[in-house]
């Protein structure tokens, strides 16, 4: 493959910002309808009561928290790619860093909606905020949900800023090519970027610091999310491996989502020379690694349940594999740990259809992992008389559709209005490549 020139990079990326075709707007409109369906369902739920969902006694948490964890998980690999791999100087992440980072921001936004949707009385959500009041009532800082609130809002703030910082030079580049209103908007967004040496110096320092700041968040946020479960007493939740287990799972699902998004992106926008098969292959290799960690975590859970001699734990895990949610459990195991092993075969990890298919399956598997944990734990708790099952209702599916639509809606708007590949970092990559060849 011939070497990309700087101009070629600019042209390819900026070409994506040309006025879109009708098919694009049609898709956007369809997604918007999906959002409306979700919003209507939520409105109905607020009006009538949370009971329109399928949650019950004993399974009081349903798809709302499953989706919350799912989307927070998706968010993670964006930061992993844009920050951690940046610090490790893994050049192959440059072509996909922007898209992955965007995915992070939108996934956190989507995830952030779910705790609100989940609340029985969402209109009182401000009780969770530490605001001064005459009753001297503060939130309960012992509660993992307060940890969550802090972790997620920190994560949203940092990842948005990080994302935006990286965008500045590229927006400036887009501004230079744009005309009319677009130009005005880009002008404001680019914060007066001129490309002076001093600006570049500050920018690259700042970007590095942000990367360093975002890196611990990758670990901490999903650890905190896992403590929602691990800090409880529920059998199947109360476990010390939850933090690393959840972080690995999060990255696993996030990487799969990156592939799911990148493959259509590069097909539609002629990014094949930027997002090359090598890049995808590298992501696939990482998926093998995360899949193995996740598989190890599953095995550890079973070992600990057996090793504990605790009849409650043993029964809980026996039932998980062989009980009422056995289908969900085996979907989880097969999709998350067995199928990614196919990536050991070079042909498969270089084949775009295979990559796409497997990435979707991993996403499905990771959704079911959250289902098995969140619904399965309390369904089969300490008191056998109170055991019960949960299945989602139509309203929950409506809200799920709405939030998936919201995520893709935002992503669609993004790819046509902001540079979806970082021109700056691509040029760095090309430049470094030139240097290394010298």
């Amino acid at each position, binding site marked *: 493959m011939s070497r990309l020139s700087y101009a070629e990079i600019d042209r390819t990326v900026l070409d994506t910002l040309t006025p879109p075709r009708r098919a694009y707007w049609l898709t956007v409109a369809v997604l918007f309808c999906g959002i409306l369906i979700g919003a209507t369902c939520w409105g109905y739920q607020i009006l*009538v*009561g*949370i*009971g329109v969902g*399928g*949650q*019950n*006694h*004993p*399974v*009081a*948490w349903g798809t709302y928290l499953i989706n919350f964890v799912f989307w927070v998980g998706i968010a993670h690999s964006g930061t992993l790619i844009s920050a951690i791999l940046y610090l490790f100087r893994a050049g192959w992440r440059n072509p996909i860093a922007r898209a992955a980072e965007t995915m992070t921001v939108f996934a956190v936004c989507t995830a952030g909606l779910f*705790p609100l949707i*989940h*609340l*029985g*009385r*969402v209109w*009182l*959500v401000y*009780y*969770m905020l530490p605001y001064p009041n005459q009753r001297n*009532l503060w*939130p*309960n800082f*012992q*509660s*993992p*949900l*307060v940890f969550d*609130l802090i972790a997620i809002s920190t994560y949203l703030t940092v990842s948005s800023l990080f994302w935006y910082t990286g965008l500045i030079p590229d927006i400036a580049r887009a501004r230079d090519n744009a005309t009319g209103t677009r130009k005005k908007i880009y002008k404001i967004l680019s914060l007066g970027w001129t490309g002076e040496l001093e600006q570049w110096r500050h920018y690259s320092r700042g970007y590095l610091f942000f990367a360093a700041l975002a890196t611990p968040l990758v670990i901490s946020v999903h650890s905190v999310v896992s403590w*929602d479960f691990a*800090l*409880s*007493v*529920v059998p199947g939740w109360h476990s010390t491996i939850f933090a690393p287990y959840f972080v690995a799972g999060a990255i696993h699902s996030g990487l799969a989502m990156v592939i799911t998004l990148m493959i259509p992106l590069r097909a539609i926008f002629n990014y094949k020379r930027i997002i090359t098969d090598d890049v995808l292959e590298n992501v696939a290799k990482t998926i093998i690694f995360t899949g193995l960690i996740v598989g190890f975590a599953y095995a550890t859970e079973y070992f600990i349940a057996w090793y504990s*001699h*605790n*009849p*409650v734990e043993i*029964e809980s895990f026996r039932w998980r594999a062989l009980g009422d949610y056995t289908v969900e459990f085996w979907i989880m195991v097969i999709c998350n740990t067995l199928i990614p092993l196919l990536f050991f075969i070079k042909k498969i990890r270089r084949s775009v259809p295979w990559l796409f298919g497997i990435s979707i399956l991993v996403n499905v598997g990771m959704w079911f992992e959250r289902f098995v944990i969140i619904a399965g*734990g*309390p369904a089969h*708790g*300490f*008191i*056998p*008389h*109170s*055991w*019960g*099952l949960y299945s989602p209702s139509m309203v929950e599916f409506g809200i799920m559709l709405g939030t998936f639509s919201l995520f893709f809606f935002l992503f669609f708007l993004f790819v046509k209005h902001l540079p979806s590949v970082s021109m700056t970092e691509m040029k760095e990559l090309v430049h470094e490549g030139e240097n290394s060849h010298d």
Partner: protein
Amino acid sequence: MKRRTFLKLAGIGSLSVAAGCTSRPENTLYSLVRAPHDMVTGEVRWYASVCRECPAGCGILAKAREGRAVKIEGNPYHPVNRGAICMRGQAALQGLYNPDRLMAPKIKGHDGTFKDISFEMAKGILQKKVKGAAGKAEGGIRMVTETTGETLYELFSDALGRSGALKPLVLEPFAYESLRAAHKAAFGDEALISYRMEGADFLLCFGADFLETWLSPVEYSRKFAAMHGLEEKRKGRFFHVSPVQTLTAANADLWLGCRPDTEAAVAMGLIKAALDWGRGEHLFDELKHGLSRATAAYTPEKVSEETGIAVEDFNRLSNGLLESRWPLVLPTGSANEGPNAVKADIASILLNYIINPTLSLFDFTGPQRVTTAAPRAEADQFFDTLSGRPPELLLIYNANPVYGFPPARGVEAVKAMLEKDAPFVVAFSNFMDETAAVADLIFPTRLPLEMWDEYGGKEGIYATLQPATGLLAPVPHIGDLFLEVFYSAENRPAADYKSLLMRSGMEKAGVRSEREWLMDVIRVGGSFKEKEPVKANAPQVNPDVPAMLSGPVSDSLSDYGNGAASGETRRETLAFLALPSIRFFDGRGGNRPWLCEIPDPMTKVAWNTPAILHPETAAAYKLAQEDLVEIESEWGKLHAPVYITAGIQPGVIAMPMGQGHWGYGRYADQMGTNPLILMPPHTNPESGGPICAAPVTMVKRGRRERLANTDGSRSQHGRTIALTTSIEEVTAHDANHPVKHGLTMHDAPIWMPTPEGYDKHKDFYPAHEHDGYRWAMTVDLDRCIGCGACAAACYAENNVGTVGIERMLEGREMSWLAIQRYMDDDHPERVIFLPMLCQHCDNAPCESVCPVYAPHHSKEGLNNQIYNRCIGTRFCSQNCPYKVRRFNWFSWQWPEPLNLQLNPDVTVRGKGVMEKCSFCIQRIKGAHGIAKNENRKIRDGEVVPACMQTCPTGVFTFGNLLDEKSRVRKMVEDQRAYQILSYLNTKPAVFYLKKVTQHI
């Protein structure tokens, strides 16, 4: 914009916002111009009365707030129930405030539809009809009534007699015909006696469901606890012989499942064993020889062959019976099961007589009031004559024969008769029930909680009713109505029923003035002075009685049941039994949402009616739980989902009565199934009682119908939840039983929910300090019979929402206190009940996970739920190991006027809020108020939560754990005390006392 303009605009803006945001004023706030003299806003008034939900006649105290009754509790002075009340009694309020209660009379038009009319108009019509029909003895007026008090019955009889009519027929679906026939045969008197069960050390029961519906369930629950609860390291023994494991049978030390209708064979086998043992020397020869002859064939082997009870089990039973000092044998149940019922009842009486010559545990002094009810055969005859020679006017007071008779008889014959033009049918009913629907005039009269009346469940008890609540409509008193309609102003015996009642009551209670009557009788709820015990000698036993025992027991019905047992894969006929229901009684409770919502104690099924059958039967018909079956008898067929349990004999299907209404309001209609559909129209020729057993065939239908059952699992899966200990362990002399000190499920000790329970090695946070009180409860599983009265009391006291069948199927019931029922893994017929409520942990998992401090640990150790603070994350419920928290998935409905029952001391929770047992904090607060006024601490036993108040067996103890002398503290130190799942270190404040088992 100028600075001044800005300030002006800002001022106007903020003023208008402030003005626009005032809360909406309450438009209908007015005080009573003339308040009743005893009504003080915010203060409770208690009115002593009598529960009329069944003929037992328990004394009640109705708690009234602002002129409306909000809660019913037992009257501690009343000799029948001594302060307890069952779930049906609790639910009487939901009859009073039932949204389907008729508020005006209705008259049937020519097109068959009903039209509301005024009470005056209805009275006018009634008066005209009475006048028209008067003077014609049989063709004139006839009347059917439920069991009523003496005064009211005499008024009815007198009024009817004045018009030349016969006395009213007392119709009661459970009239104990076979037992009455047995008494008649044995003693020459059919009166239903009471039993001194508390004095027995051995109890054998041939199906009498005395903990559920039989005669006087609250009374016998109490006496049973006295007899069977662990006391001084001893407890009585209890055997139960019946084809179905009813709640009563589940409380037995050994339930012996027999084939349907073969109880008589067991009883006769025992008579033979007793005679062979040398008992019965006091019998005069004629009787003795008669008995030996009649029972000669009933060797243990023969009994076993007839009944399906293993020989060794029978021997255990006969040895136990004959070795005991004070044995008591009880007869068959409320619903007569089959052709041999009379035989079984006679044999049970004779058995008592043989082993206890003085019959000292039989109390002949006060026959049950229900004895006045006509046997079913007589009622049948009554309706037959009616259709032959119809009277002009038929009055029906609170009876529902169209539903209560087998449809083969009721709907076809009774309804046809009632619907004929000839009699003008007046139903004095508050509900549009099945019988009212075929009447010509429906005339609502006052319900017991609104009435002056008197009712003694037994002869010799003079107990009174008084209005405890304001009227919802100008409904007349049935007595006043009769006085007005049947009498002219001159010959009226009294101006109104109240004066009539007072006149007769003053005499019966031995008081002289109205004031005395009101203060000493009405206020107490009756005249309960301890009388000289009447030394009533046991009547002589009729020597001819053995003749009635002759003849084979194994006739028609007993053959049905033995198919599956004998290994055949499929049989054509099965035996079908209709069981009286602890929840609905004969069906009159079917429209009370609490009774529908609180699950059946044995099946844990709420709202719908299952067909209960044995796993072997299910296997033979390839049935799984909840499969829909069609059951057909000669007389009808029905559909029902299957409930499979080992607590029934193979080849038998049982179904509780009381549901399957087709015209009894929104909560009852089309809910469940009425098992009487399958019953024959005729009665038992020997007793004249209705037959509640029939041969049926069963076919599997392809579909399933989900049962609204609340149990996730019947097994405890080896966890430390509902624990038992053996009598040997309890009575062992070395009282220093091993102290546990481990950290795992099976060796964790009790960890007190007080600073004593703090241990720095296992506790992360310091112990809670308590301010004078640490409320705690003990639950004695040895006394818990699983009746569910506590659950009903909790619904009533705490405004717990009822959710309906759809929501229950989704798993959203709201009960704060649920009776959990567990079956032993190896012996599923060994059942244990456990009331589960909030454990008010000292180390509560719910408290730490709430982000907004809605669950909050109070200074007195209570785990309070602050509803206003709750935002509905439901984390607390997820993290509660005991799963006692309930979430308001919706805003639950109390259709008017059901809302009038709501306890004003307790918040009604809206949607999106978590709730749970509060230890009745409103009662604790009330006690605090009183104690503070009197400048003292709250006394031990002063705070009584609703569950504890109503429990007939004294399961609960509540008090202050910090008080070393409190009863609860003493109970906690009992060797049987434990905490559920204490290894979780939640330090619950609810301690359970292990059930004491004895394997005989």
